[in-house]
């Protein structure tokens, strides 16, 4: 019997999805919720449905309508019934109704930032939990960070595809919920969670707080499932699973095993305390885990840090007396095992995806100003209030404001015969006023190949910073795409922040081949994306047009030129539909390649052999 429970618990530990779902049901208010980055798929609906139906048995579950507005969240006067009855009816908002329950938000990536702000603020009051289904594509802005950082668990397609959800019984979850508060946490566990956050590069102090609450919930679950005095699992295994779950997706680096650590780990594993899930999952996903470690080893940049870390470890007095039964493990041993277990649980390529975490912030920042559609004046955009006017195809009636305008006149106007409460005249009509954010994004596409690259890059950096300095007033954005060696890369996603631009452009290598075709391909893809988000784009390409790497990344001048021409023609379509393109020829003398390329993509052509920052800014403004 206990063997079955044991297996069930181990399955729970090994599956981040199940762990997140069950823990959230144990402590919904403290953990905030799950941010699930996945598009509609059988996998997603396969787990969301049973999860929601179980959650519905434990508390209210409300689905946020995609057209929800501030009033439906916050509540307010119910106009329909108020007008009908002649009495004011106050309706409760979603945030009040979801009290202690779960709020499901589908298509959270399209959530209006002002609603997101409201939800974030409400989450701080610890009144409910959220399930955010974020369907943003790789290069689209996802949900605003101020919302996602208030949720404990971030899971996504990348690390969880095809994981099955195992939900525990309702009673177990409820028992654990009640027991949660009486669980004590050893000082060593505090330390492990605190130090692991640093080791994974998780700076936000909310993360360790979430990990701690999750730990408490998990221990409560363990006790409920197996109420015997001897715990069925070692603390390290539990901690490891939680570190992987909470810190993994937020990680900006992987902890480096210092030289001494493996030895210590071995020495320590000789007593029976070896964490089982670690070993099992290491076997099942042996390759990825190994790859992960190798990757961590490759990452030499963090060496200084890990050394520093090991120094602090030596200075720490070993934590004592916090475990009763097991042979006392020192704090650093627990940490090593837990971090090791966490790493084994993390899938390969995680850092690539959770570098996402680093850029997620970046990306979502641009989400603040997006209108979500092609410009369609008058009907969309951020609401700016109302104005007088008659509704029509170009303007929408603002019902509330219209009533509001009519109300003061009711006594004066002749009473209505047909029993209607209000008499509305033409002068009362109010329509929505939307802000049409005509936001210009300037994209620099920089040839970072060859000898002049460094100089050119420096000038582009200068131009970006100068432009951003002006952007205070103009509210424009700047992005940089650079190409060298065998590929093009989005160096700086559209941003308005000087701070960020400086940081991201600080180290920009130059030299190598000229993959012009991939650069142009990337440019048209990104421009199309950004335009879909309602931005106006202009692109400034700086290159001599002498491509020598083809679109597949292979050298060869002829094919490379051919590919580049093809891509340039594709870009021409964008130029024809409203994006301004400029080609700055950086060759010492006008080059025929650059001229024909500019012609193919319908860009205006300039010769600027010594492209300087001021010149570029003049071009852009």
């Amino acid at each position, binding site marked *: 019997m206990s063997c079955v429970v044991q297996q069930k618990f181990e399955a729970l530990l090994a599956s981040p999805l199940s762990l997140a779902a069950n823990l959230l049901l144990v402590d919904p208010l403290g953990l905030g919720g799950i941010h699930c980055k996945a598009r509609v798929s059988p996998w997603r609906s396969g787990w969301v449905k049973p999860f929601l139906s179980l959650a519905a048995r434990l508390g209210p579950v409300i689905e946020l309508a995609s057209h929800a507005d501030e009033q439906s969240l916050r509540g307010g006067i119910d106009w329909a019934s108020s007008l009908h009855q002649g009495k004011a009816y106050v309706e409760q908002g979603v945030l009040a109704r979801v009290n202690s329950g779960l709020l499901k938000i589908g298509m959270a990536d399209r959530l209006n930032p002002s609603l997101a*702000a409201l939800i974030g603020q409400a989450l701080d009051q610890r009144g409910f939990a959220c399930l955010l289904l974020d369907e943003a594509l790789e290069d689209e802005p996802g949900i605003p960070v101020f919302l996602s950082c208030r949720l404990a668990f971030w899971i996504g397609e990348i690390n969880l595809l095809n994981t099955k959800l195992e939900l525990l019984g309702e009673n177990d979850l409820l028992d654990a919920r009640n027991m949660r508060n009486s669980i004590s946490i050893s000082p060593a566990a505090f330390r492990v969670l605190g130090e692991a956050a640093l080791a994974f590069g998780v700076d936000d*102090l909310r993360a360790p707080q979430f990990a701690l609450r999750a730990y408490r919930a998990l221990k409560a679950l363990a006790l409920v499932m197996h109420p015997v005095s001897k715990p069925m699992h070692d603390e390290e295994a539990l901690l490891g699973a939680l570190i992987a779950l909470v810190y993994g997706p937020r990680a900006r680096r992987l902890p480096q095993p210092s030289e001494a650590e493996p030895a210590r780990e071995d020495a320590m594993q000789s007593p029976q305390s070896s964490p089982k899930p670690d070993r099992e999952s290491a076997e099942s996903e042996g390759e990825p885990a190994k790859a992960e470690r190798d990757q961590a080893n490759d990452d030499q940049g963090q060496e200084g840090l890990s050394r520093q870390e090991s120094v602090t470890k030596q200075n720490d007095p070993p934590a004592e007396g916090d475990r009763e039964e097991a042979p006392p493990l020192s704090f650093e041993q627990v940490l090593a095992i837990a971090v090791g277990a966490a790493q084994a649980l993390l899938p390969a390529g995680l850092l690539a995806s959770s570098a996402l975490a680093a850029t997620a912030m970046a990306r979502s920042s641009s989400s603040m100003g997006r209108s979500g559609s092609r410009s369609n004046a008058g009907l969309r955009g951020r609401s700016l209030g109302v104005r007088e006017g008659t509704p029509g195809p170009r303007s929408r009636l603002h019902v509330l404001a219209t009533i509001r305008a009519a*109300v003061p006149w009711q006594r004066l106007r002749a009473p209505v015969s047909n029993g209607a409460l209000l008499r509305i005249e033409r002068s009362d009509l109010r329509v929505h006023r939307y802000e049409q954010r005509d936001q210009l994004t300037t994209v620099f596409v920089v040839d970072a190949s060859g000898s002049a690259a460094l100089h050119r890059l420096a000038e582009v950096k200068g131009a970006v910073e100068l432009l951003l300095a002006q952007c205070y007033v103009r509210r424009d954005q700047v992005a940089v795409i650079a190409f060298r060696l065998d590929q093009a890369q989005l160096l700086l996603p559209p941003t308005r922040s000087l701070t960020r631009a400086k940081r991201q452009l600080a180290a920009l290598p130059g030299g190598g081949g000229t993959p012009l075709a991939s650069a142009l391909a990337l440019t048209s893809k990104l421009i199309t994306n950004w335009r879909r988000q309602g931005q106006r784009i202009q692109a400034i390409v700086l290159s001599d047009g002498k491509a020598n790497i083809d679109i597949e990344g292979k050298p060869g001048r002829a094919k490379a030129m051919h590919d580049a021409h093809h891509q340039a023609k594709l870009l021409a379509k964008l130029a024809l539909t409203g994006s301004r393109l400029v080609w700055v020829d950086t060759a010492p003398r006008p080059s025929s390649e650059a001229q024909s390329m500019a012609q193919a993509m319908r860009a205006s052509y300039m010769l600027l052999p010594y492209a300087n920052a001021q010149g570029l800014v003049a071009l852009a403004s």
Partner: protein
Amino acid sequence: MKHVYPFAALVGQDDMKQALLIAAIDPLIGGVLVFGDRGTGKSTAVRSLAALLPPMQAVKSCPYQCDPQQQSSACPYCKGSRKRQSITVAVPVVDLPLGATEDRVLGALDLQKALREGVKAFEPGLLAKAHRGFLYVDEVNLLEDHLVDLLLDVAASGENLIEREGLSLRHPARFVLVGSGNPEEGELRPQLLDRFGLSIDVKTPMDLETRLEVLKRRDAFDQDPVAFCAHYESQQQALQALIVKARASLASVALPDEVMRYIAQLCMKLGTDGLRGELGLMRAARVLSAMREHSETSIQDVIDVAPSVLSHRLRRDPLEESASASVIARALRDMANA
């Protein structure tokens, strides 16, 4: 009532705490801007202010919580009613959500009354609620520009003037504006920066011990808020007493000529625009002296508040690498040596 994390239990972030206390003692300081990383306790600190500040007297059922001691000229409620009862209320700390509409911030026609009684009445907005207290705007850099302008305008004039929907009235709205945000997500226009009295950069603590302390206290609070708050009660009381005392002695703190001269020299050296820098520095230094129970302001007081008063007022070359804090530190050092 829900328990709020006590101000006294916040770990570290001394600059931020000091700035908030200065603003609490002298609301005329003109707002606090807290810029920095996420999860550094910005919101926690501001929201904990309500419990820390000494409760105040207000006119009963006045929607603007007017001070019964002062004959308020602007308040439409107090002007009208003869008999004014006094009640004790907590200092309001109002959260302004990012997506707030102008209606909600400024106030609007009270539809309920209009519909039911046919009366044209004003429904006070968040600005009215924040009168004599704090108005907290998280992510102020993401707030719509016209709303920020409006907030700063009201904060500066101390009155909210309403001319809309057939309503025409003014009501008092004196509050300390506290803004927070993350500079990586967009910067504030310099004109707006300049209107905040104090500006603080907060950073995530990166040393383990501090972080662990944060974790432990937060956990203890979550487990048993009542006991946790009780544990910090004496410290909260002490802080509250400090605020009350400093407020009382503020007017009597002297400002010697040499300190005044030092302030002027420092601002000239840093090339701050206008005189807001000098005035703010003077005011903040005086509050700090009052907090330290000095009878006159010393140069040390000025040095201690200078970074938070001046860092956002420097005429900054956008391409300049060095942070403004270090520029100020350098200027202070130069002045010490000279």
